[in-house]
């Protein structure tokens, strides 16, 4: 048996769905924060297994989706600087900036390369000292340690041809922002297991207490998610609002202190913009002044055009969980994975793309019924 098989087991999933149906006496609404979880929910059709009336809201935990347009533009502009190699994770390549995406820039001659690990970019810089390598480091607390490690390695190798275009964001401040919205409809949260693998659970008890919501740290396989939902619903039914850990095979309550220390050496917490949410207080990381030589924006100071979001795109509402992707008038019409209006239609972790790929027939059936 493979390592994931038990977490995709149909029998276990059905038992959990049954327990969920027996436990829920009210139509609870739960937000899964992470796009990886959204993708699993859509891919396995988990919403079809939920009790009548129970609703999932898809949160903003898609790194591609929340990376600000300004940063995407900066990546595109930097990629076009002579002598620059832009190293990026694969799914950033198709995100539309104001003047096209990175694949488009590459077809016009920019040197844009896909790396599987930030350390690969450092290696490339060490092997090719004649060109400057910019690592486009994005993502949540999960990927920040690897970006920080790349910076450390570059410093150890004394590379002068390596820098970071970093846009790392932090999940708990975004949860706080969503819950501070007076009209939010969220009864409980599934927190992102991999974020907590690094960060631990320390940030969450205060949120549970202040807003009266249960938060269950949850994994990414279908059985994990149904189990997390069951734990969340049981808390709601019992009137509890605590932090619980479903993803015990990966998350320790103190997380990974070494990884956090590494991030802390290179980055400091800052107020940063999230695409779709606006500026989130303490919602991200910026490179510490001591590491300025590795900050691509300070090194190149690229002149960036004014950027505005397409008017028709409702990605902001989708990212805040206030609009189901299929209810967007442009979904599947003006906005498709071939011609995305907004980032959530690009990434496999984006709610719009997940719905487009996996749930479209349901949406079209409903539209046809109307």
């Amino acid at each position, binding site marked *: 048996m493979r390592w994931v098989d038990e977490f*995709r087991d149909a029998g276990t999933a059905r038992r959990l769905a049954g327990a969920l149906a027996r436990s829920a006496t009210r139509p609870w609404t739960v937000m899964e924060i992470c796009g990886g979880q959204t993708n699993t929910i859509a891919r*396995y*059709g988990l919403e079809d297994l939920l009790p009548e009336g129970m609703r999932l809201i898809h949160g903003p935990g898609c790194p591609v989706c929340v990376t600000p347009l300004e940063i995407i533009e900066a990546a595109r502009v930097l990629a076009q600087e002579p002598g620059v190699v832009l190293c990026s994770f694969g799914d950033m*390549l198709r995100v539309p900036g104001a003047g096209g995406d990175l694949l488009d820039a590459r077809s016009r001659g920019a040197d844009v390369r896909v790396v*599987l690990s930030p350390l690969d970019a450092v290696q490339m810089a060490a092997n090719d000292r004649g060109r400057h390598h910019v690592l486009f480091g994005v*993502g949540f607390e999960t990927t920040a340690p690897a970006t920080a490690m790349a910076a450390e390695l570059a410093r150890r190798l004394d590379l002068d041809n390596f820098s970071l275009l970093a846009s790392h964001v932090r999940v708990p401040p975004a949860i706080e922002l969503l819950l501070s919205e007076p009209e939010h409809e969220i009864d409980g949260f599934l927190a992102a297991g991999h974020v907590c693998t690094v960060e631990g659970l320390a940030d969450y008890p205060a949120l549970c207490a202040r807003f009266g919501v249960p938060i269950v740290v949850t994994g990414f396989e279908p059985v994990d998610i149904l189990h997390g939902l069951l734990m969340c619903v049981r808390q709601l039914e019992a009137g509890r609002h605590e932090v619980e850990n479903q993803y015990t095979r990966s998350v320790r309550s103190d997380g990974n202190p070494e990884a956090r220390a590494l991030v802390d050496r290179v980055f400091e917490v800052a107020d940063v913009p999230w695409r779709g949410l606006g500026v989130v207080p303490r919602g991200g990381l910026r490179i510490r002044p001591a590491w300025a030589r590795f900050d691509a924006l300070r090194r190149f100071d690229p002149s960036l055009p004014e950027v505005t979001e397409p008017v028709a795109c409702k990605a902001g509402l989708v990212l805040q969980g206030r609009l189901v992707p299929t209810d967007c008038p442009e979904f599947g019409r003006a906005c498709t994975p071939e011609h995305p209006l907004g980032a959530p239609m690009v990434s*496999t972790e984006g709610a719009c793309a997940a719905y487009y790929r996996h*749930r479209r*027939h349901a949406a079209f059936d409903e539209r046809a019924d109307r």
Partner: protein
Amino acid sequence: MTDLACPVPFSDYERVVLAHGGGGRVMHRLIEELFVTAFDNPHLRAQHDGAVLDTPGRLAVTTDGFTVRPLFFPGGDIGSLAVHGTVNDLVCCGARPEHMTASFILEEGLALETLRRVVESMARAAREAGVRVVAGDTKVVEKGKGDGVFITATGLGRVLAPEPPSPSRVRPGDAVLVTGPVGDHGVAVMIEREAMAIESDLASDSAGCAPQLLALLDAGVDVRCLRDPTRGGLASVLNEIARSARAGIHVREADVPVRSEVADACELLGFDPLYVACEGRLVAFVPEADAERALGALRRTPGSEDAARIGVVTEDHPGTVLLESPLGPSRVLDLLSGEQLPRIC
């Protein structure tokens, strides 16, 4: 694979130079001592501008271009791939592959030793597939204007199926079969290309599929449609057929054979194995009444021991492929919008 063939002293050069495509003595020596020697047959030996073939009956013809990086990967190389890809397109027409032509675009600076390995591998694959390479061409492009070797091939085959397989013959109720696990080729190439630190014995499935076609025809199976799931993988092929047949296809995900190495590598990269290329598999549509016989015939054919029935053609949702998740609910299995890209986390 250990190459036991003796190196052929076909050139005084170690690398491809523009003169190898220039029409002079250097080019002729390359053609005679490498290509004609490796692909040896009367048509090539005649050294004419083309080959005159005596092939009665219905012919199937196909053409295909081959580019792959790296040129050599576990389980094959661009030479064997060019044969298998061409041969399998003929097989999908219900034809036994017999002849092919090959055009080589060589990049200046390519090691001639590399070219020799590619050509000899290609010749070996052609012999195994029972195909003669009867005509060819070589061009050389300046350094930086190619990726080592590009190969374009044309294949000719004799149609054996009483009614050639075609999407238009697909009917509701037909069983959908696949001749082995999917995604091996794409993942093997990816692991090699990215020099990923994955310990794996995984090899490409690259192979000619004529034995599978012959096994089906010998068993008296009415092969309604055949397709090799190359670029875009199984999911894309099923979508193409659903659209051209104007039929629905219902696939059970749990029944699609995927090797655990392929599933794990895809997990890591954020890929879906159903969209990853195969180079030695067929998707077969056969009448329900023939399905078990077809599976038996395939499973007795070396290389398709793991053939499986993965779904059924439906009257519902014409043009759309639905994938039933192992947990029960179904979803649309769509065409990809572009290529799959490795994800962030």
